[in-house]
């Protein structure tokens, strides 16, 4: 069964606004990662948060992790048209070894 599920499926905002995407998962994890995919391209790694971390920042990105609720959120502040892409959370199950499970993604549209 699918481990990570993103919410919302699609999000449309104006440039300059903040965008928040959520991810829920089902089993204990080793770490959780967020990736971006521009149309017609491969995925690009954005940020990794370990199971013992609660929050992490990278530039305009802020990721939180709540292992008790099995959920994570990705916040993009001051969004730009170039942020338009699909965003995926990916979980590494605690006993999963090298297996990474991706959610279905959130499609973000940032209007200029």
């Amino acid at each position, binding site marked *: 069964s*699918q481990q990570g599920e993103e919410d919302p499926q699609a999000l449309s905002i104006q440039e300059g606004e903040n965008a928040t995407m959520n991810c829920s998962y089902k089993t204990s994890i*080793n*770490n959780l*990662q967020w*990736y971006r*995919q521009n149309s*017609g*391209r*491969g*995925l*690009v*790694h954005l940020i*990794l948060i370990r199971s013992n971390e609660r929050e992490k920042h990278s530039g305009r990105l802020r990721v939180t992790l709540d292992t008790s609720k099995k959920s994570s959120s990705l916040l993009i502040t001051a969004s730009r048209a170039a942020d338009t892409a*699909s965003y*995926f959370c990916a979980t*590494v199950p605690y006993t*999963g*070894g*090298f*297996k*990474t*499970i*991706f959610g*279905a*993604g959130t*499609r973000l549209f940032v209007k200029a």
Partner: protein
Amino acid sequence: DTAVSQTPKYLVTQMGNDKSIKCEQNLGHDTMYWYKQDSKKFLKIMFSYNNKELIINETVPNRFSPKSPDKAHLNLHINSLELGDSAVYFCASSQGTGGPHEQFFGPGTRLTVL
């Protein structure tokens, strides 16, 4: 310099044919992966090799056979192609042991089976 490259980028073929997709990474990583992304953008892992050893083999038809001649290459051969095989196939690589870290993805191969 391309970190993870795949060839071909597009592949259009008839049902029943056999085709291969090649992947190469120049990052010096130990682990490589094949993923399938369907039309709804859902990305599913198919195979993974660590130091040329198969470590992940998901529920994939045995018409799909990966081959890793060395750490830098992971190819995917597909026999008797079916309509349902149409998808985008991504190769990825990562470094480190004890589980996947940041993965680097190739640009994808869009396979269309007619």
